[in-house]
């Protein structure tokens, strides 16, 4: 008998109704294939310990005290214990856990909000459609052991994430977990949950909202602070959740308003707006938020959730920009007008009676925002409202600077503001223009100036020439990588003949300006790395043009093959980047996925040369994503601000035994090169980061051709950016075939003279020196149960 979903009444028992919900079918598709479907907090602890034993947590506390509970404040300096018994190491690990939980909660709550809304609109049975893929939800399959078919199938997935996050949060209470190592295992668990929550959020919106489905050639969206026509009414949506902006875009579409109103997004909402309707535009990342508001150009601000500045209402109302809050998570104390008539609300906001409203009826948001923009815009434009000083005021302000440097002390970037003020006073604006790119738009300097110079506004005024030119292009987020692309490229990745996948992710808290992110991408594309990006970093890549006026997205195609540049989409589209490695393990190597996290992560760590670069990461979300990637065996490099996350995972190449792996063919132990050397680390500068990225793409499984290619880039990038051969290049040489072809002879000589290796010069062969030989059938693993036979 086949049991089907539905409502049934049994004959003779008319008062009884039987409801059958989701039917889980036995069989290949439904089969759990690994040991850990729906892993509990400790289910993957052994895997975490394997990671932590090699990649030790490194703590750089920002505070020496703990004030979590009323026993405290406790002084934990020098790793002392506080009143509850926790030491600074444990406390800092607990902060890592809490940071991961916050990030994971953000993304999965975003997913939950979308799922409620999309189920209401399209029904639970709406099918998942992510493009040409059998492996539609790689993270869901690997973690949950299920293959979702409809958006309703994600209900138990989010329920699982939420339950686990509650359990993890409980572990952080005073008097609970006390071991740093187990806090880290739990943080890794939270990171994994974060990846899962993101996957749900993005798959359901791709499936229901007509977003691109694994398309390599999506349209280009305009990006930059200079792209909007300020003479028209301007709507700016800020945050991450497409639900509300989608209604605005629909209303504008239905009423043919795209010629009359400019609409753009700030932060990841912008990506998803362009994925939903390619007429929308992107202003930029969160670091542009305050700068753009201060310009006075927006006539209406619409907020949803995540990466929305806490002071947005105050800033906006000073410039008479009404704020429409559309999500329960950010309500700003605004009156809830969800039940009111739209025209009444428009009148109240246009007259200034209200500074903003909370509007949770999204259909009404769609009507309210364009109407409001049309009404408010002429009033605002007639008054010429802006926070930026006019020419005369600007000259007075820069002349007023006493060079006390208080602003520099308060600036998180330590920017040399006083020097730029002095130059501007002498008619040279170039230094303010440089500051505009390096400034993360935090506004802290405004508070510090003792002579009340509104520093950020002065920088922005001084940089008007470059701001007007800020017009770039971003290839609209494509969503996942389709199975056919993986089939084509998987082999090159695992053998190393594609030198690596570099995921450019994270936020805009760059240490030395936004251009760095463009420059790293350009360099690595020229070297045939695959660049996959998402979120704010994906926007910033498209901000700069070459001499012919082309952005990188216009110069490099978007297929998952070497030398291509892909944008998966918004912050939650990060999930597809991690999931790509699962797809390679499954599609290329035939690894089972369902409920099989450890085996997949082990495969990824040993064989797939993928590395994340979160050069401007600032948020808890970015930390959670990185931690989730780490549990999946993907190393991540952050910019110098990343040390303020307080925890990294750093390997010790000098400890030989840390680099023992097993050969899955017979369980024998093989001492391998430190690859990947670290799981989470920072670099101080761009120059330092470049060769580090190349090094972290090296894997024990590389074949000789692949290793030679990877070493070529590692050596060349080190020579180009650090003026030196890397000290450890020889560690990665297993035979002469691993050496970069163009330099083979020279490198053999160096191995002989500087490292004492024995070379047969007649045959140009290495006779002695390397730590191990190349073995094309070597199957490196860190998991004993995956070995065919455990060696004695």
């Amino acid at each position: 008998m086949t049991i089907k979903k539905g409502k049934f009444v049994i004959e003779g028992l008319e008062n009884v109704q039987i409801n059958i919900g989701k039917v889980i079918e036995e069989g290949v598709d439904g089969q759990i294939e690994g040991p850990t479907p729906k892993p509990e907090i400790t289910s993957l602890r052994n895997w975490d310990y394997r990671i932590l034993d090699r990649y030790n947590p490194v703590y750089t506390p920002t505070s020496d005290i703990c004030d979590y509970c009323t026993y405290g404040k406790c002084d934990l300096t020098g790793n002392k214990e506080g009143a509850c018994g926790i030491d600074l190491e444990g406390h800092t690990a607990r902060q890592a856990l809490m940071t991961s939980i916050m990030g994971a909660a953000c993304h999965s709550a975003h997913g939950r909000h979308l799922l409620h809304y999309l189920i209401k609109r399209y029904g639970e049975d709406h099918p998942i459609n992510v493009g040409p893929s059998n492996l539609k939800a790689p993270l869901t399959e690997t973690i949950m052991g299920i293959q979702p078919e409809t958006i309703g199938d994600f209900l138990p997935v989010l329920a699982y994430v939420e339950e686990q996050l509650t359990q993890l949060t409980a572990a952080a209470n005073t008097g609970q977990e006390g071991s740093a190592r187990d806090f880290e295992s739990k943080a890794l668990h939270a990171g994994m949950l974060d990846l899962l929550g993101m996957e749900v959020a993005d798959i359901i919106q791709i499936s229901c909202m007509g977003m691109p489905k694994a398309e390599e050639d999506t349209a280009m969206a305009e990006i930059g602070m200079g792209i909007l026509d300020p003479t028209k009414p301007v709507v700016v949506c800020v945050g991450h959740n497409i639900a509300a902006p989608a209604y605005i875009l629909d209303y504008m579409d239905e009423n043919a308003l795209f010629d009359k109103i400019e609409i753009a997004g700030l932060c990841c909402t912008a990506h998803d707006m362009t994925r939903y309707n390619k007429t929308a535009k992107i202003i930029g990342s969160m670091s542009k938020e305050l700068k753009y508001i201060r310009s006075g150009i927006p006539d209406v601000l619409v907020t949803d959730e995540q990466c929305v500045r806490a002071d947005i209402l105050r800033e906006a109302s000073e410039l008479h920009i009404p704020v429409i809050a559309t999500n329960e998570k950010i309500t700003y104390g605004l009156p809830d007008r969800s039940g009111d008539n739209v025209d009444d609300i428009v009148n109240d906001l246009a007259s200034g009676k209200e500074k903003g409203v909370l509007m949770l009826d999204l259909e009404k948001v769609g009507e309210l925002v364009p109407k409001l923009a049309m009404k408010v815009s002429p009033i605002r434009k007639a008054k010429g409202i802006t926070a930026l000083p006019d020419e005369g005021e600007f000259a007075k302000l820069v002349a007023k600077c006493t060079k006390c440097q208080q602003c520099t002390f308060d600036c998180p970037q330590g920017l040399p503001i006083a020097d730029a003020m002095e130059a501007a006073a002498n008619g040279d604006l170039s230094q303010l223009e440089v500051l505009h790119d390096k400034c993360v738009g935090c506004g802290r300097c405004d508070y510090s100036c003792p002579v009340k110079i509104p520093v950020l506004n002065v920088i922005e005024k001084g940089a008007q020439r470059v701001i007007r030119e800020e017009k770039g292009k971003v290839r609209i987020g494509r969503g996942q990588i389709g199975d056919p692309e993986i089939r084509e490229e998987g082999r090159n990745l695992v053998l190393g003949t594609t030198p690596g996948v570099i995921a450019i992710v994270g936020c805009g808290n760059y240490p030395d300006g936004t251009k760095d992110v463009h420059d790293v991408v350009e360099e690595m594309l020229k070297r045939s790395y695959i660049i996959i990006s998402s979120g704010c970093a994906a926007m910033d890549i498209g901000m700069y043009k070459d001499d012919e006026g082309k952005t990188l997205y216009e110069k490099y195609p978007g297929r998952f093959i070497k030398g291509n540049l892909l944008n998966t989409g918004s912050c939650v589209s990060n999930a597809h980047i991690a999931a790509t490695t699962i797809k390679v393990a499954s599609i290329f190597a035939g690894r089972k996925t369902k409920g099989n996290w450890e085996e997949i992560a082990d495969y990824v760590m040993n064989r797939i040369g993928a590395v994340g670069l979160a050069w401007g990461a600032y948020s808890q979300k970015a930390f959670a994503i990185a931690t989730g990637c780490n549990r999946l065996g993907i190393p991540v490099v952050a910019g110098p601000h990343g040390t303020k996350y307080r925890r990294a995972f750093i390997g010790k190449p000098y400890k030989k035994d840390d680099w023992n792996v097993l050969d899955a063919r017979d369980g024998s132990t093989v001492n391998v090169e430190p690859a990947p050397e670290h799981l989470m680390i920072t670099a101080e500068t761009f120059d330092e980061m470049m060769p580090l990225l190349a090094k972290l793409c090296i894997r024990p499984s590389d074949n000789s051709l692949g290793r030679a290619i990877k070493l070529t880039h590692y050596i060349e990038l080190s020579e180009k950016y650090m003026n030196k051969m890397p000290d450890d290049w020889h560690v990665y040489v297993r035979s002469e075939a691993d050496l970069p072809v163009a330099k083979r002879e020279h490198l053999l000589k160096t191995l002989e003279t500087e490292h004492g290796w024995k070379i047969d010069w007649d045959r140009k062969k290495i006779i002695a020196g390397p730590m191990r030989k190349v073995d094309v059938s070597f199957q490196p693993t860190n998991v004993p149960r995956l070995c065919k036979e455990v060696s004695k």
Partner: protein
Amino acid sequence: MTADAAVKTVDTTRRAVPFDTANIPGPKMAKPMMPQVAGKMIAKAKRPLLIVGSEVHDKDVLERVITLGKTGIQIAAVGNAYKSLGDKGLDVHYINMHALSYYICDPEWQGLDGKGGYDLVTFLGITYYYASQAISALKHFSKTKVLSIDKYYHPNADMSFGNLKKDIFIAALDEIIAELQKE
């Protein structure tokens, strides 16, 4: 710069407040330090290490770091410092500072040259907040003494200069050099 040259004494203990206003770690903060003290401590250390970062490229600072290196002190060139220091005939090694700050805490680590760990590390010319975080690791999890002779007050060090204007900073480095050249 030689020991014979006239070296003026400067006060490096003023403005000993965290360079980033909010970087107040806790009850234990670095003791403000005069240059001669720094010079003497480095000179007396059995195995000192000078850690130099990406702010070394300034001509005046670079000149001093090279002279310091010529006194024989081993240099860890972190960030991109190696670019300016690599070809100057010094005992200089590139290393990532995040990793270095951890390795120094490991009693098994044999140093940049395999000859053993360090009893005194001195920070100079590094992005402020980045160095502050690295020094935090050493403050809590190592026994190594930490000095900061940078132009910033580093609260996490054991001893540090205050926040210095450039001329004072350079003069202070000259004093340290003179002190080392005496020994």
